[in-house]
């Protein structure tokens, strides 16, 4: 119809709807971390490498290749050119060695979107101010650079960990040839294999020539009162990524991105890596409106996962493609296993019992849950909390509960009969007559899961009630351990496993370890896993950790839901379904082709 044409007037533009509360107004990638900002940042900026979850390898982006190196800067690699972990362990296993040295070589044909060539000085600058809080303030780099051994104290460089031709490589004993001066950089990182991970794949590289003139201790990168100059740069980004932003046409309701033709990565045939010339991101406040827009053909893709309930609606539409991508996000039920003393009570004391927790785990029927709550759009998760698709590290032995559900219920009741003396038709009671009843803290959106849990746990005689999360659950409930159970989503993957295992199962204090689980054995295993310099050993340890976690029943897995997203097929084809992502992703952008009109 005429309205359709009117709304998507440009043939080579991909119209993308996004349901967000707001669009970013600043495109300083280190600062914009809410909502769609990372997606946009990743189109405008690049990291050194990208990480392939399946293979555990780094794909080149800005960086061309990298190695662990010995003191002379020689790569520690096997003849095939892959990391030689045995030599690495031999060289660096010595406790007196305090760091790992890494050499990164970058592409030599990269330019910033303003035409200035990108050199290792930009890399140096980015990491350097990332570690210098006096310049960067608490901009996002804080967490990502924490493994880099490059330290500032009050704005003074106290330990150098980055070396380029122009910045101390020679002094440190790394020789860089004159012709490589723009492409080679050495880094010193903590002696953990995962150290390079965030440095390479998370930290977006900033253009030195843009930021150095404006960033100073007086006018920090992340300032509450940025100067006009800074604001201008926030709003008019200069990146090295495949797209540039069209600031003229972008606003609070839409963001327009154009493809850069001088992007350094090309397809094999020399054509641009990304097929889509222009991307028009449109903001919708509400999912319903976004779906209106898609149905009416005002947008091509919806960059927001929709609820599985909508499957029924879209299945009837011919021109709509549904992407039912496997998820990466594991929804778990977290039990408050070890509340601070002031928050202990007889009911919560039950949760301290491993067996009791097992009973709860037994009661949960994941298949049924997925069928009912997710309309089937999800997959079960093993108690080891690792997805089966992560073939390198997944341990199938972690799943040790019987699969027959009736059996499980019977076992659960048997356990409970041992723990709780009194039972009537409505369920178990404590000695003092108090009913065994827990509150589950949750967001309103999680209510259907919780309702399901209520019914499920009722079957084994335990009462569960929904308690809404307040506006600040962290301070009011979680850190004070003023809760019984809560829902928490986790992603354990190759890339983050050593950080996340530590955060969830061994660190105490104000972390996501709301329930303060302390298991010395697990703790020790995680530590070893984190610090080993041998990847194979590390993978083995991860596999060994999974049954331990499963036995704890501290985080009881519920499901991993699929990411359902939709796109119209009347203008473009070649959408790519990517795990854990919506159908608007890098692969899609590279693959989409315009439908030929008859």
């Amino acid at each position, binding site marked *: 119809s005429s*309205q359709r044409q009117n709304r998507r007037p440009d043939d080579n533009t991909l119209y993308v709807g996004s349901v967000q509360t707001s669009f970013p107004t*600043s495109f300083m990638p280190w600062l914009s971390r809410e909502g769609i900002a990372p997606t946009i940042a990743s189109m405008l900026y690049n990291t050194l490498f990208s990480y392939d979850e399946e293979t555990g390898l780094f794909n080149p982006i800005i960086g061309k290749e990298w190695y662990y190196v010995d003191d002379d800067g020689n790569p520690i690699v096997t003849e095939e050119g892959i990391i030689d972990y045995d030599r690495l362990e031999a060289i660096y296993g010595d406790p007196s060695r305090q760091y790992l040295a890494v050499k990164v070589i970058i592409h030599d044909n990269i330019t910033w979107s303003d035409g200035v060539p990108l050199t290792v000085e930009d890399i140096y600058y980015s990491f350097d101010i990332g570690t210098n809080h006096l310049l960067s303030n608490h901009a996002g780099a804080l967490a990502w650079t924490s493994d880099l051994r490059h330290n500032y104290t009050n704005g003074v460089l106290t330990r150098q960990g980055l070396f380029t031709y122009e910045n101390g490589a020679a002094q440190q004993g790394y020789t860089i040839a004159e012709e490589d001066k723009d492409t080679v950089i050495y880094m010193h990182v903590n002696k953990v294999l995962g150290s390079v991970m965030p440095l390479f794949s998370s930290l977006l590289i900033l253009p030195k020539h843009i930021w150095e003139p404006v960033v100073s201790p007086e006018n920090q990168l*992340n300032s*509450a009162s940025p100067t006009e100059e800074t604001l201008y740069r926030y709003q008019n980004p200069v990146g090295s990524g495949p797209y540039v932003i069209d600031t003229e046409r972008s606003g609070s309701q839409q963001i327009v991105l154009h493809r850069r033709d001088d992007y350094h990565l090309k397809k094999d045939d020399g054509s641009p890596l990304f097929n889509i010339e222009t991307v028009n991101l449109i903001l919708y406040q509400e999912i319903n409106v976004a779906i*209106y827009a898609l149905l009416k053909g005002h947008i091509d893709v919806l960059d927001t996962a929709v609820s599985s309930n909508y499957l029924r609606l879209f299945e009837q539409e011919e021109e709509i493609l549904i992407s039912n991508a496997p998820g990466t996000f594991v929804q778990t039920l977290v039990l408050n296993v070890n509340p601070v003393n002031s928050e202990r009570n007889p009911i919560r004391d039950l949760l301290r019992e491993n067996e009791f927790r097992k009973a709860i785990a037994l009661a949960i029927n994941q298949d049924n849950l997925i069928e009912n709550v997710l309309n089937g759009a999800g997959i079960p998760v093993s108690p080891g909390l690792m997805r089966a698709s992560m073939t390198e590290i997944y341990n199938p032995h972690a799943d040790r509960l019987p699969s027959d559900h009736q059996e499980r219920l019977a076992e659960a009741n048997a356990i409970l009969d041992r723990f709780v003396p009194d039972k009537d038709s409505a369920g178990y009671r404590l000695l003092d007559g108090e009913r065994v009843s827990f509150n589950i803290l949750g967001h309103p959106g999680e209510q259907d899961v919780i309702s399901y849990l209520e019914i499920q746990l009722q079957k084994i005689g335990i009462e569960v009630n929904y308690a809404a999360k307040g506006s600040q659950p962290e301070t009011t409930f979680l850190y004070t351990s003023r809760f019984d159970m809560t829902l928490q989503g986790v992603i354990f993957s190759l890339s983050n496993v050593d950080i996340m295992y530590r955060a969830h199962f061994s660190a105490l204090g104000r972390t996501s370890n709301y329930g303060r689980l302390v298991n010395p054995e697990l703790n020790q295993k995680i530590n070893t896993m984190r610090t080993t310099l041998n990847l194979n050993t590390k993978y083995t340890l991860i596999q060994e950790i999974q049954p331990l976690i499963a036995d704890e029943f501290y985080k009881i897995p519920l499901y991993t839901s699929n990411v359902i997203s939709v796109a119209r097929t009347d203008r473009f084809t070649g959408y790519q379904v990517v795990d854990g992502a919506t159908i608007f992703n890098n692969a899609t952008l590279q693959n989409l082709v315009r439908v030929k009109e008859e």
Partner: protein
Amino acid sequence: MKKSYVIKRILYSIFVFGIVMTLNFFIPRIGVEDPAERYYPPQGNMSDIEYEIIKQVTRQQYGFDVSTWQQYLNYLTGLMEGNLGTSFRSGSPAVTDLIVDRLPWTLVLSVSTLLIGLIAGILFGVIAAMKRGRWQDTTLLNASTIMVALPGFFIALILSFYLGFEFEIFPAYTDPNMVSNFDWSLSAIQTVAENAALPVLSMAVGSIIGYAQGTRNAVIAVTNEDFILTAKAKGLKQNTIRYKHTLRNSMLPIVTSLGMSISGLIGGQVVIEQIFNWNGMGTLFLEANNMNDYPLMMGIMLLLSGFTILAILITDLIYVLLDPRVTVGDKR
């Protein structure tokens, strides 16, 4: 006398605004020891040390490292310069800038709602009052009993789906290009009008009926006044009486209620903007709320209160123009 009343009225508005400013400063500080915590609530994956650093920095950046009174003073001086503080959004945009961007679009809705409500409302009200007891009157009465009980957002939902989505009479939600393409050309204005149609309609229905009911009652009340009898006894023509004597006096209560209704109108717009994807202050406010962006929320509140104060002030001054009796004291 009159001049001094105006000055007093303005001074009093400033006084009220001062209190609102003060409240605005203190509300986000209710119940927290460290304002930095309210401004930057802890995130799950943050270590204690990181959080401490962030809090430290936040305190410094947002000036929480000085005494509360000093903070208050700084806040006031900031306000004097039109600085509503810094939003918690990335890139630390000034609250003022964010608001200024959205303000005109909110005003488009509220002002047109107000105008349509007033004009149509007064018209219908006068008709109903003139045709007292006849179908025009009873229709208004029945309509008003039904309308007051229907929340605007419910009407909006229905309108947006049926008129917007199903029958495509008006856009079901705002055209995202509307704002960026706006250039004062006729077609751009037409686009705005089309897009504003449903949101304005869903808000205006209620206010039309409200003002109509108010006008009707006011007109009837004035019709019973002695001076209307005098006017009749003078042999004045029906129309002279109606327009010169009745209407002007009937406007007095309408003007008073107008100022009061502004606050409700602005408040109700939050939901309507959300439903129609209209990028105004209402949606900005909800965005701010979702992000715990207190500076932005309080900035919007302050502005909305300021508007209301201004509206009440203006209506009061109009009232003075209309009613020479008000010179000192409070009419309300």
